[in-house]
């Protein structure tokens, strides 16, 4: 009897199974009607991205990035750690280091003695930010700055860390931040490139910069960074060769464009049109560049503001002044690199000299943009690729010590471009080794920069080799707390 009942249950279940199955499939089918793209080939397509127009109204129109190449120590600049001076010479506690991998330069060191800053710090401005005595001019404009003390990165050596900052990947060959902006925002002045690069070096221990840092990667080559050098020809091969005048040049370009047009009609390669555009822009740059690079008309106050070196081509000060001129003329992204911040040894002497190179001119740039009413729409960024260790590399002597690479925390500052002025964001522990409050990852930083320019870092994408690429790869979060 009981068996029969069980049997009956099973029979019913088979029928019920089929009828239920049909009902289930039916309801799925009904639901699928609500997803228009479900069965379209290629799956769910992204919203077609239209480059050259911001996703939302931007706060900033342009960026000037003062990259301090070699990684300045946060402990002698913006992250005040009196505890390190108290504990000078004491061993770095293993609990603080937390088994972190170190570079080959100090990994084999028998001891890791803590070392405090040789220079003093004072508080400045409304925000009461602590600034080291090496940066007297920066201290004066501290109420225009947002100092982030809780940056952290993934790389521990210069080239990967730089590449990570600039392209969002340690490996290279991806588009640089400036190229992404050029792609996302389009040109503001068609007589100058959207993305320019200026180099300088101090006497400190230096690290190389390579043109891959301003590469357009897989983006169209018009988005590539153009390096301006400090010789007679700021942009190489721009001036007409001897014996060729403007008229001849124009005629040559017209004929060339005609031939290129024919070739485009035959092959349909869009790179051909890009090339024509580039020739045309180079032609216009022949007048725009000398006009922009001319420093002779700058008033005396400007020379005093940036410091006397601003008239010596190739110095950081001169590059800051040029950066302002380029930015003022609609260049979307001006990238400066100042080399010489890699203080593994002889830190006190070298960092003082590096700070002297950059302090006055960096502060001057912010002041100068402000007095032209341009700071609101220009984002200025100052910082290196990682920080430096709170323990000494090599022996500590009275006036000499060094610091190794440290990716876990470092300080940068931003000014203008809709970033909250006069704040200090994030905190590190007493020994300046780990971030303890409001960490900002490099991808968060990149997302924030894009956000200020009206670009959603999750939507600024380019499909290449079958996958979608972003500057922030698959992470990054806009740091809302520092946005005004």
């Amino acid at each position: 009897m009981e068996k029969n009942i069980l049997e009956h249950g099973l029979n019913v279940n088979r029928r019920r199974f089929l009828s239920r199955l049909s009902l289930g499939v039916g309801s799925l089918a009904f639901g699928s009607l609500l997803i228009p793209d479900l069965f379209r080939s290629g799956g769910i397509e992204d919203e077609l991205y239209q480059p050259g127009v911001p996703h939302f109204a931007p706060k900033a129109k342009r960026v000037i990035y003062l990259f301090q190449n070699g990684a300045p120590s946060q402990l002698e600049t913006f992250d005040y750690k009196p505890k390190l001076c108290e504990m000078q010479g004491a061993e770095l506690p293993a609990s603080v280091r937390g088994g972190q991998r170190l570079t080959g330069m100090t990994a084999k060191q028998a001891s890791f003695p803590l070392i405090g800053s040789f220079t003093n710090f004072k508080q400045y401005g409304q925000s009461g930010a602590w600034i080291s005595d090496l940066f007297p001019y920066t201290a004066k404009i501290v109420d225009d700055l947002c100092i982030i003390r809780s940056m952290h990165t993934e790389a521990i050596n210069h080239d990967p860390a730089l590449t990570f900052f600039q392209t969002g990947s340690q490996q290279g060959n991806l588009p640089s931040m400036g190229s992404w902006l050029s792609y996302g925002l389009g040109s503001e002045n068609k007589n100058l490139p959207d993305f320019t690069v200026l180099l300088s070096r101090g006497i400190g221990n230096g690290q190389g910069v390579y043109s891959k840092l301003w590469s357009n990667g897989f983006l169209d080559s018009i988005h590539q960074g153009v390096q301006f050098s400090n010789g007679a020809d700021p942009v190489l091969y721009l001036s007409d060769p001897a014996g060729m005048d403007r008229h001849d040049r124009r005629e040559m370009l017209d004929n060339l464009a005609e031939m290129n047009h024919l070739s485009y009609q035959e092959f349909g390669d869009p790179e051909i049109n890009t090339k024509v555009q580039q020739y045309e822009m180079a032609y216009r740059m022949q007048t725009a560049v000398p006009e922009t690079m001319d420093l002779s008309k700058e008033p005396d106050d400007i020379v005093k503001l940036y410091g006397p070196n601003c008239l010596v081509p190739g110095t950081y000060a001169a590059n800051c002044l040029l950066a302002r001129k380029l930015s003022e003329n609609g260049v979307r992204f001006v990238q400066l690199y100042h080399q010489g911040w890699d203080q593994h040894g002889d830190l006190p002497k070298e960092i003082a000299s590096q700070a002297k190179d950059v302090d006055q001119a960096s502060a001057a740039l912010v002041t100068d943009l402000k007095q032209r009413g341009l700071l609101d729409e220009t984002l200025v960024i100052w910082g290196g690729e990682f920080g430096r260790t709170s323990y000494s590399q090599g022996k500590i002597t009275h006036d000499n010590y060094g610091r190794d690479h440290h990716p876990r925390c470092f300080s940068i500052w931003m000014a203008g471009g809709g970033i909250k002025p006069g704040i200090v964001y994030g905190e590190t522990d007493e020994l300046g080794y780990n971030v303890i409050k409001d960490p900002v990852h490099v991808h968060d930083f990149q997302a924030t920069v894009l956000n200020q320019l009206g670009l959603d870092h999750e939507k600024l994408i380019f499909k290449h080799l079958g996958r979608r690429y972003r500057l922030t790869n698959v992470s990054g979060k806009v740091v809302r707390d520092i946005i005004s």
Partner: protein
Amino acid sequence: MKSSFKVIGGHVLFTLNIFIIFLLLFENLLVLPYWLKAFGRMHPMMLHFPIVIILLSMILEYFRFKPEYVAQDFYQKFTANLLLTGALSAAVTVIMGLLLSREGGYTGSVLQWHKWTGVSIVFITSMIHWSRHLGWYRLQVARAAAIITSLCLIAAGHFGATITHGDNFILSPVTSAEKSPVPFDQAIIFDDLVKPVLEKKCASCHNPDKVKGKLLLTDKESILAGGKSGKLFVPGNPEISLLLKRIYLPAEEKKHMPPAGKAQLTEDEITLLHLWVKHHGDFNKKVIELPVKDSLRVLAATLLKSAEPFEEEFDFEAADQEIVRKLNNNYRVVYALSKESPALAVSIFNRSTYSVKSLEELSPVRMQVVSLTLNKMPVKDADLKQVSQFENLRTLNLNFTNITGGGLKDLASLKHLQSLSLSGTKLNFRDLLQQMRSFKSLNKLTVWNTGLTDAEMRQLQNSNKNIDIVTGFKDDGSNPIQLNPPSLKNSSRIFTEQLSLDLKHAIKGVDIRFTTDGSEPDSINSPLFTNETILKSNLTTIKARAYKEGWYGSEMTEFTLYKSSFRPDSMLLLFPLNSVHQANGPKTFFDREMGTFNANSPAWANNWAGFKNYDMALVLEFKKPVPLSSVGLNTMVEPKTGIYPPSEIEIWGGEHKGAMKLLSKLRPQVPAKESDHIIKVFESSFKTKPVSYLKIIARPLILPDPKTSKEKKMLLLIDEIFLN
């Protein structure tokens, strides 16, 4: 009929369950047609049915296994059907809710809680429906199921009500609700900034129920009255005010406020109270009445600012894309502010192509232009009439244009203008001051480098307190800075017969003072450089400094210039060079390219020829005999990295290859191991001799290696040889 309801109802319930799971899985991909939106919007109406029906059926379910009810057929059937009806209505309600939530405007954790409690009601009631007649479903299970379902119902209902009516809807008349942030331009310093701090941090002890120290901090009169220890503050004088004194006391002090154990004031709150007292503890003043750069106003701006990014909405239509495209050319860029925005920004570049037509042509988009950049264009006062057509303009950049202020009256009609940049123009102060009144929305004006005097700028700021007048940097001579040293502009530091010295300084009007005798130059005794100095000696060291009124004199700079009168016609090294310092072979010594320090770094090693394992033995030949009297070897010395001068230099010469005689022999001093690096010429002089063949021999120094105590050859680096 009832049994068929049970069967059909069961099928429908199953279908709806699957559908709900589907909706949950693909929630983000749904695109709703309009008629489904209407269906979704019935959620708030429908939801009342499941609440009542399920609640009722759960009460019945709870008592279902009571002996007296087990026997009642109606009770059992009624409960079963009521439960099924409830589950069905719940499923329909959940589907509606899921559709409604896709309409946007619904976010946050409350919605998530509402969604998942609602969905669980459907799943639980369905499970009860399908399993309530199975053997394991007994009294305990029934009761547990009834209680869980009822709790879910209450929770879902509560969260739903919160979404619709806001947080704390029921109790808000009882408790005082949180105030919404006050707009910046309406905020009153005391009411909106100071009072909340007092309420939060002080009023727990200083209120009418608990008047500690006879001090009440809840209303204006009591605050002014003070407490047992006297008045609370001296207007305008925070340093001697009791309030601040108590706050600033160290936390361990007994009289420190707030007392230990209570919530302490934050830095911002202390600054706020300090500044409020400094501003005379005013109770009615608004934040915007403060000057723009006032510390309290700056602080208030950060405290009052909402975290959400603010995007201005424009009430005009977007311009025709095609028109915008046509207005773009190589020297004028017209671009949309963002994808959704109708607003346009315009930048015009290139002085030579600008004319007032560049502005006139923009009239088709005159409504849409909100930002206009005319920086450095030759814009005249009259052109501003054209600018006035852009009635929605917010930002106008006229830096370094040719305007004088007379035309600013044309801009008075721009009632939205917020930011005006006039830096670098030749402004007429009277015109500017007069026009300022007509700019109603203006909040920022830049007047740097306009020729306005400091007094005029102050007057401008005083009569326009709401506008941030940016005056910028002006050198008033009170903070002189140091000049940079002069530089040498001669193309090469090596010359053949004579050289006209060319010292330069990038800054106009700088005096260069210099010496050639090795003494330090100063601003009084040393000769002024005038482009007339001719150098003829074999070796001249120039020491120079730059001076200018209003600057500190520069650091000293030093240049060495070398004469090399003769150049051999052929040159040959008898022994090989050190492998990493090959430079340009024997030609290196006469290529006039100087090396610099850091010789071991490959990029800079190019100009240094190095000798280590073999001696330097260089044979030179002149087609015609030359009258030679000295040979100088330019050498780097850097003992710290093992680079030393040679131990010995021999110069052999003569008119025939086979008959060279020793002309000179020199033994340079061995420098100390710690000495600083230096680039130095070792010069061998002798009586003038006609020479066709010359042989120069220099031997690397041999020093004992401190580690092995064996002898070791030191590196010798030479970049140039000077023959005179």
